[in-house]
């Protein structure tokens, strides 16, 4: 954990303590702070905006109720992502694993500031993630997208570290096999090289 993570966790803990005392302002700050990453995280589970919002609100409803029971065994972000993961799975059970339904999404769902390059990157990623299982997509998101360690992902998904390692390995192998072809040409790869 770097200094920025440590500072963020200290802020989260303070907010959680205030939430435990019934401070709704703290809840609002925490909600806005996590909304973006939870939306992206849950979008790896389902593409339905209403289901994602429901899962986020279920997550913070639980966080609000259980704030006083957080003992600091992990980072607050790990704790919240774990709750969100379970809420996401619950939403998946209730609403089904509905794949991307472009017709159901508004045409202008891509942010207006999204340049063509980002759109191309999203398409490339989306096609690659479609090849993975839900658990593999979640591990990839937690490691590459959010930046969690293997231990933290194991806490979030409530499974052994070995299982997380296996899911990450298989997801990476699958992506390695499909992503270059999805990129269209090799020049696209070189853009990402350091």
């Amino acid at each position, binding site marked *: 954990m770097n200094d920025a993570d440590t500072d963020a966790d200290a802020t989260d803990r303070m907010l959680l303590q205030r939430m435990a005392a019934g401070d709704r302002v703290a809840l609002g700050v925490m909600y806005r702070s996590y909304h*973006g990453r939870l939306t992206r995280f849950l979008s790896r589970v389902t593409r339905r905006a209403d289901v994602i919002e429901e899962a986020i609100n279920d997550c913070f409803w639980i966080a609000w109720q259980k704030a006083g029971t957080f003992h600091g065994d992990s980072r607050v972000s790990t704790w919240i992502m774990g709750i969100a993961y379970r809420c996401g799975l619950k939403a998946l059970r209730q609403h089904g694993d509905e794949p991307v339904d472009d017709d159901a999404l508004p045409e202008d769902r891509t942010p207006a500031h999204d340049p063509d390059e980002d759109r191309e990157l999203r398409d490339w990623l989306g096609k690659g993630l479609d090849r993975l299982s839900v658990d593999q997509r979640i591990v990839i998101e937690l490691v590459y997208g959010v930046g969690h360690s293997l231990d933290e992902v194991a806490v979030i998904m409530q499974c052994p570290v070995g299982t997380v390692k296996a899911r990450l390995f298989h997801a990476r192998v699958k992506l390695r096999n499909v992503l270059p072809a999805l990129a269209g040409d090799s020049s696209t790869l070189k853009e990402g090289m350091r």
Partner: protein
Amino acid sequence: MTFPKDTARDCTRAWEAMPWVLQESASEEQRDWLTDHLAQCESCRAEFAQQSRLRLALSLPSDIPIDANVGLKRLLGRLDMPEIVEAPVRRRSGGWLTRALVAAVLVQAVGVSVLGMKLWSAGDQSSYRTLSQETAPAAPGSIHVVPDGGMKLADWDALLHSLHLQVVGGPNEVGAYTVVPADPVTPARNALQQLRATQGIRLAEPVAATP
């Protein structure tokens, strides 16, 4: 391009290090080692480039438009009516338990009633008899018959058939059968006399009626 001897092992190590170097949680030593390895391994360089692009793509904000303010407003509204949200859940779970218990009691009550009715309807027709109980009354027209030991089964069957009698008991310890008229219309007295007159019947006596 030349590769060091332990390329395969180094490539595996590089593969494992890539995610952590990319999320900047790897040690400085690990990062430096990977940089050196990438400088001399083209395939790992390509893989790392793809991993970098993957991380970049995954770090883009979600393209699903969800308004945080609207969601927060809904959440706060939900907090304002916790009883309404919680009450149905509690009532449902409590109601479920109560309904299950009531159902169990009803099933038991029905079972006890059925059993009681069955026992009541059976009355004193128990399959056993205590020593204090009187002997069960014999059916009207019952006759104790002792056939001769040499009588053939076919002759015995033919005799009973001709006299419209049927065996309802025996043989007891002295070899006596209890027979009753199969047809209530046939006078028992005639059957008794014919039995006594039949060769091969050692004894035929009417069963004394219970006083």
